[in-house]
């Protein structure tokens, strides 16, 4: 039974392509300022207040790896990518219930578990389109500013972002099965993901609140670590994957019990 997966995947193509286009254009704008950044990185790093550096994780901004890892990825990928997946997750179930599509869908021989799993599985579309679009753009784009990028590092930045995006989607999904209105779920999910990004960034400023950041998905994906230090935090990726599975399980548990 893959009817839901097929139709949901199809429905995600449009938004994935549009968002990839937006990300590609934004990345190219970022890359265009890199030559200036390369020359004046020191001044820029000094100019930023410390909390901004902590928030974005600026390091080695004059290298292309530091620039991408500390500037492009945290901004485009972690914040806006995360928000998109949270939004997509939040729209899954609540929207079908609100527009009465769920009544008709569940009159078919398909279980509620299957509805959730197939809906989540349809996220393969934005995951593939966004990752490929961004990776190809940046790989080609850096050559325009006379730089080169190790394709292995680039692949790892994208590969390790997948568990992070899935957790964002999972947060949205749990809200989606818990609240009555899709708008509430979507705003809540975006707010949660943005807030946890903020908390994680600020928690790194001092040791007193450092522990707060461990409860956020953002702690477990760091593009600068990968690009600048070539360190792949596979353990962190596992933590994110387990969190994602827990969130989906929780969503199923809530959804099968609730009235529609």
């Amino acid at each position, binding site marked *: *039974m*893959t*009817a839901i997966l*097929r*139709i949901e995947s199809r*429905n995600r193509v449009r938004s994935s392509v549009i968002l990839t286009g937006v990300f590609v254009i934004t990345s190219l704008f970022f890359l265009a300022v890199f030559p200036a950044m390369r020359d004046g990185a020191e001044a820029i790093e000094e100019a930023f207040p410390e909390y901004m550096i902590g928030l974005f994780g600026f390091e080695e901004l004059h290298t292309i790896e530091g620039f991408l890892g500390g500037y492009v990825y945290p901004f485009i990928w972690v914040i806006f990518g995360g928000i998109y997946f949270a939004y997509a997750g939040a729209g899954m179930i609540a929207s*079908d219930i609100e*527009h*009465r*599509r*769920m*009544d*008709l869908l*569940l*009159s*078919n*021989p*398909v*279980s*509620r578990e299957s509805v959730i799993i197939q809906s989540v599985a349809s996220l393969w579309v934005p995951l593939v389109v966004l990752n490929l679009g961004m990776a190809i753009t940046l790989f080609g784009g850096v050559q325009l500013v006379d730089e080169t990028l190790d394709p292995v590092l680039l692949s790892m930045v994208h590969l390790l972002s997948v568990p992070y995006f899935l957790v964002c989607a999972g947060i949205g999904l749990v809200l989606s099965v818990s609240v009555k209105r899709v708008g509430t779920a979507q705003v809540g999910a975006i707010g949660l993901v943005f807030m946890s990004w903020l908390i994680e960034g600020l928690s790194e400023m001092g040791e007193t609140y450092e522990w707060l950041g461990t409860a956020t998905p953002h702690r477990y994906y760091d593009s600068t670590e990968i690009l600048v230090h070539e360190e792949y935090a596979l353990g962190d990726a596992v933590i994110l994957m387990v969190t994602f599975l827990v969130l989906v399980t929780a969503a199923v548990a809530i959804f*099968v019990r609730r*009235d*529609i």
Partner: protein
Amino acid sequence: MAAISLENLTKRYGDVSANDGITLAVEEGEIFGYLGPNGAGKTTTIRQLLGLIKPTDGTATVLGADIRNRKALTEVKADLGYLPDDLGFDERLTGNQALDYFARMRGDEQREELLELFHPPLEKKIETYSAGNRRMLGIVQAFMHDPELVIMDEPTAGLDPLKQDRLHQFLAEETASGTTIFFSSHILSEVQRVCDRVGIIREGQLVALEDIEKLLDRSGKHVWLHLREDVIESEFVTEEMINVEITDNAIQFTYTGDYNSLLSHLTSYEIDDIEISNPQLDDIFKHYYSEEYTEDS
């Protein structure tokens, strides 16, 4: 085996009972009318039968599956068709794509035959559909897999009279070949025309369950008259007339007796205008069930 069987089915929302201890059975191959005014609890019953909401108390079986057993209920849905009152299609799909989507989940053996009777513009996106086209698409998806049981909630809403007739005729053919229909409606005349048996629900309670013929015998006719002269109540009104309302030379009442005696009674009056019609559902409730209802409670 009954296609649908409700046992003390109860659904409460706080202090409000949307369904209050409903017990009834729908036999295989019959068209069962589930009649009640809007807000009586018809859709609540249907949504419990589909497992969308859980009963507070009591239970029901659908094609032998207990609605509290999610797995069993999911399995029998392969032989179930559902036409909701509020048709939630994916608006971005065309009619054809929507039917393909449902066909992948439960088959479409008689899709082409149905499309000869009901033909929404399949190439167009559903968001452009009129209410009638939506309803036709809903009918096709409900029946296209040749189900054993079809649950229909206000099925003719939005259909033009010609299509309504076509649907009624189609339902008769389907039940002749063994399909069971659970037909929910607030329109008495429609239920009268289509159904074998009827259950009437009011304020969440089943207030009548009987053959349509018997119900009609009991419900009488609504009569409205305009006489040439003022109506003299003591002279005009007989004991077969109930719910009598008189204003000068106009009178309306529900007539529960033999029609011939009514007609011969009327010949002794000068009549300017007359209308004899089926009583409104509300009248039936008021006059045939209110006493019982009050006594019971």
